[in-house]
């Protein structure tokens, strides 16, 4: 029954995809079979292929072309999609893990100590709602390096969900379990390692998963601003070239990579899940 549900869902997904692509294809203007051009159209540059949303067939063709050789490098404005995504992933992951290295220990501290919680809470509440891109000018000025600034922006946007979830998870560890640690005279580090961390791990992982999602959202915007390399820059560059086929293709790639990142974290979350 379950298998057949999955099979039916798959069939339905494929049907929806086919219908969507069919409608899209049909709605796309056919560019090169238009007959005579009016003088007006000629004046407006109608002889050139018009920048229009490309039909799916063109996008698929583009995807085939790009994915066959994703890592070519033909100068600063012509790099393979794989290289661009690689740059983006590098920035996302370095900013993200720097954030984790800070947020998880600080979250532990806040979760364990009501004093630290009360003391740090106002800062968190003010800093958290700031759009990560708002930091960009300041980062560019202070760091003086666009690469590092992009990483900093990722760092600052990933920190909050991890910090808050870690603090929340640690503070919410059942008192019974903490008592088990106490009656066995576990020191603070053993207690953290044997009891608190595993108990809070599902909540922490949820925070990490939210953070990686946000980081992937933000990197595209950040790279559009700082330029140079990365998938965000690629989208913007192709838009400037009016190559909408590449734009649509890279939008799809952003979605696919985001999904893969989320799936990886969902898998990790399952590993630390426990049932009470």
């Amino acid at each position: 029954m379950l298998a057949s549900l999955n099979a039916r869902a798959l069939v339905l997904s494929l049907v929806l995809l086919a219908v969507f692509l069919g409608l899209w294809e049909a709605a796309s203007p056919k560019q090169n079979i238009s007959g005579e051009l009016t003088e007006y159209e000629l004046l407006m540059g109608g002889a050139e292929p018009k920048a229009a949303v490309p039909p799916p067939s063109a996008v698929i063709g583009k995807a085939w072309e790009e994915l066959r050789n994703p890592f070519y490098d033909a100068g600063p404005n012509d790099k393979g999609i794989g290289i661009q995504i690689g740059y983006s992933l590098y920035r996302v992951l370095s900013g993200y893990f720097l954030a984790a290295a800070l947020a998880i220990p600080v979250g532990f501290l806040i979760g364990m100590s009501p004093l630290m919680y009360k003391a740090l809470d106002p800062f968190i509440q003010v800093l958290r709602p700031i759009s990560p891109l708002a930091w960009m000018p300041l980062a560019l000025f202070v760091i003086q390096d666009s690469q590092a600034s992009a990483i900093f922006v990722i760092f600052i946007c990933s920190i909050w969900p991890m910090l808050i979830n870690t603090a929340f998870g640690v503070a919410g560890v059942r008192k019974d379990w903490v008592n088990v640690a106490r009656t066995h005279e576990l020191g603070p580090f053993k207690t953290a390692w044997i009891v608190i961390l595993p108990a809070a791990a599902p909540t922490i992982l949820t925070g990490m998963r939210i953070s990686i999602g946000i980081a992937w959202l933000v990197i595209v915007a950040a790279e559009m601003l700082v330029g140079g390399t990365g998938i965000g820059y690629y989208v913007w560059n192709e838009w400037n070239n009016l190559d909408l086929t590449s734009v649509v293709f890279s939008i799809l790639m952003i979605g696919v990579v985001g999904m893969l990142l989320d799936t990886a974290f969902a898998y990790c979350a399952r590993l630390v899940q426990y049932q009470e």
Partner: protein
Amino acid sequence: MSTPFLSVQNLTKRFQAPKGGESLTVFENVNLGIEKGEFVCIIGHSGCGKSTILNILAGLDEPSDGAVIMNGKEVSGPSLDRGIVFQNYSLLPWLSALKNVTFAVQARYKSWSKKQVHDHSMKYLEMVGLAGGAELRKPSQLSGGMRQRVSIARAFAIQPELLLLDEPFGALDALTRGSIQDELIRIWSGSDQTVFMITHDVDEAILLADRILLMTNGPYARVAESVQVEIERPRERANIIHHPDYYDIRNHLVEFLATRSRELAGKQDDDANSAPKVVRFGANAGAEISSETGSKSGTRKRAVNRAD
């Protein structure tokens, strides 16, 4: 008068009511003495504060007033010298049954090798009938009774001086309950461990205990009586009911729970140093004395005449 191994002095626990209302005095001026090696059960109605006393003995909770002294030192926090079987098992759900025991054994015997820790833990898990695969399962994959047995194995495996058991056999079927009771008695007889156990089962208390403490209903509960069980050991589940004292003791306990726990309830006047009234049956009957803190039976002979 020598101080007993474990001495509870004027123990009082109040819980602050939320929003500054009247605070709840669970119990007040509880005085007890427990000798080394003694097996003591405590009986009282639900909510009278038994678990609260046990948590204070464990060092997990602080009294509002009074003190607990063990081995001449005031109890000021939890210690591996006091092993606990919690009322709700308190197993760590992300660890297998075996790991729930090994981490405790490792904490107790820090110098042991992995293998020693494993073998020692398995010995106790087998003792409670959890082996052959069940020890590798997580608590959520075990029945309530099996979880309770893991928690018993964990407490026994660290071989504490004082075992604190909070209704340890509550979730067990009669057969398992019987065999673990036997196991508990066997472990206790072969060591100089002291046991303080909460139970709701009067027959279990008579079968196991040297002394049964009776608690009145809360609030302002106290330990009103201390009933000596002088039935010689080893006690057999099947024959103990034929012992001449058995029904006298049993009736006394049941009658206390049915009526006197209620009649004696309520705030006491100023008898801050009052000790529970000692009640004896059989040969020593009539020797009902309101003794000073502690029992008169410090010289209890422990019968270790097992069949083997």
